[in-house]
């Protein structure tokens, strides 16, 4: 979809939809929101809907950063300690590597 050809209200609605959708445990929607509307929100000359667009993009970026931080922490802990957790580690795993603890 080419953003050039859409009127500004529709752009705002789209951005809002993506922002609200991300709350359903879908951080990739927030990532897409940030990447897609970054130019529109910060690099284009001002228009009426832009401040709201800006706020949506900023909030999406913050949510995304939070998710990245949580996931990175959990993944690091899991990869490091799974072997030590024994039974719990096995029940939490989807695939267990063969031949190593």
């Amino acid at each position: 979809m080419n953003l050039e050809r859409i009127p500004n209200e529709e752009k705002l609605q789209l951005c809002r939809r993506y922002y609200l959708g991300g709350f359903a445990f879908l951080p990739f929607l927030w990532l897409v929101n940030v990447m897609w509307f970054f130019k529109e929100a910060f690099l284009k000359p001002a228009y009426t809907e832009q401040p709201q667009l800006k706020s949506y993009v900023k909030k999406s970026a913050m949510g995304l950063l939070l998710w990245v931080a949580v996931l990175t922490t959990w993944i690091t802990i899991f990869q490091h300690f799974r072997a030590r957790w024994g039974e719990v580690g096995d029940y939490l795993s989807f695939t267990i590597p063969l031949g190593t603890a």
Partner: protein
Amino acid sequence: MRKMEDLISINCVKLLIIALFYTCVSCSSVEQKIYVELNDTVPCVRLLNATHQIGCQSSMSGDTGVLHVLESEDDLDWILNTGPHPPYMIVMETAFFNRSVMLRMKNSSRVSGVAVIVSKTGLAENFSPHTTCPNQNTGVYSEDYGPELANCNVTAWNPLGNGLSYEDFSFPVFALKDENQTQVIRKCYEDHNLRVNGSAPQYPLCAMQLFSHMHAVTDTVTCMRRTDLQNRFSINPEVLCDPLSDFNVWSSTRPLNNSAKGHKTNESVVIAATRLDGRSFFWDEAPAAEGTVSGIVTLLAAVHALHPVTQQAPPLRNIFFTFFQGEAFDYIGSSKMVYDMERNEFVIDLDNVHSMLEIGQVGLRSGRDLWMHSDPISFKNNSVKDEVSLMMKNMQSVAAGLNISLDEPPVTQPLPPSSLQRFLRVRPIPGLVLADHRTSFINRYYESVYDDAENLNVSYPPNLSPDEQLVFETEEAKSLAEVATLVARSLYQQAGGEERNLNNITADPKIVAQLLYGFLIQKNNSWFRSLLPPEVTKKGANSILSSGPPQFYIGVGPRNIGPVHSVTRFVQYIMANLTGTVTNLTETQCQNPESKDLFSYFWVTGPSVNGSGEPLCVRASVRLAKAVSPAFERMEYGSRDYSTWTESRWKSIRARVFLVASRELEMLTLGVGVAVLLLSLLVTYFISSKAELLFSSSRETPTTTY
């Protein structure tokens, strides 16, 4: 003109096709020019029990190392400290395969694998990779029963044991048994890896890669849990390990109704037992000559000696012969039989058992003494004490008649590791273990690859054909025949038989000689072939009748050559041959008999006289009973009472030898490749951006008419 052109082009196409065909037929693979694959690898695999893992493990894509032959202390220093091309793949001479060297390898990070040369040159005087106290946690002696005798406090049964089989190595260890293959490796080493005047050899160097990646880790509990999880939740379930299992063989002089399990009224039974298995450091290699074959051969010969007398003058009690499988791994077979007896799921139960005689290691008697081991703690029970004393007195009187010196070891000495211990755990049963050692084992190669025919001094004169060797009576055969006669007469007397029949019971040295040949030298011999089923005999090398001596490692079932281990099959069919009667049933009647309660029916090849023979149907009271540890039936994988041994699964085990280049050369090649890639990308970009300039046609006129 057109037709000529067509003809020429058709001929060109035909020529091209023929040329391609020729090149494809004579093409050669690049892989074959680089790698020399080693066939017939003998690996060391990973075994797990309730708490530990033992054995060896390699990386998933194999472990590679520069070859170095370990022949002297200098080499050891080179490998572990000074050599400039770590990690090394060691080719170890026989003399260096001991505990201290292997533990140094284990602790070093410069060793990526070991290939041990298995030969008799340089072999130390003794080598036993088993522990000093076999099966110490699953025997009868524990905190509650004879604590002062537990953990080999009084007698270390295997003092020469170095415990290597029970160590956990993180690199692969293979055995090199084939002399030709070892020569190939040595030649590669001598051509490329030798030190010239003390300086390090130059690249390219000869390297070896060993693949033996094991799937299971940590212990049986973890491995079984992961297997269960895989079976329930994974799209592609994979089993990680299998419990060690096979079958026990049992038979009785008076047939027992196998369909009625539990206590048999008015049936009092004397059990004669021995073990069927052995092990070594390497997988599926266990010649077990003194440790196992001596017992099997003695009991089979005693069965043969007893058969005519027990038919004509049956003794008071029944004699129950049993061969336990898996005794090397915490008494798998005997614990299963006792477990079934306790729960009334076996043909008899413990109330039917009157007494027990077990045959331990009896091969290294060398004309001397035999010893009757008994359990001192059970003597507190007076009836047991009296019965055992009676047994000993009877055996000694029989032995005196046979000119065998039979004696008791010191009174305070516990029982050696034996199946009788599992029976005593449940009930005080009068029992004896017959052995050729007074205290510790005489066997200097207990549970190792070197416990073979040479260890028992079984050798044949040269220039004998295989059929002549089959019936040649060696000294060992005569010695074991004497022991078998002693066992047979003692069993008859113990079972309440009459004294006057004792002298008719004699073991035949010819049968003993045939059994020794079959179990120690060559299992594909004419006698074994005649008593196995025709489909096994016809398959030849691909079945249990492959060339060479049988291996006694229990393994896991099912196997690719059949559901039952080869040794178990041999013992089953030999027992059928020695105690069975020939019936005149046809093949279909034999496979589907009317009643399987008292007897089983075997369709065997039969003796071939002058190259032709008719198959026969033999009826015998020989049965197989599943030998898998009760821990797996009860799903208590962390059990301390029962054996929990499992063997890991693996995908491929192989080895190959090739030349490697130095690290610098590899990096250089990679760098040049990356540079060429970047250069080509650059050139392509330039050409693409200046495309109109480079590829414009000068004949084109810019004018256009509208």
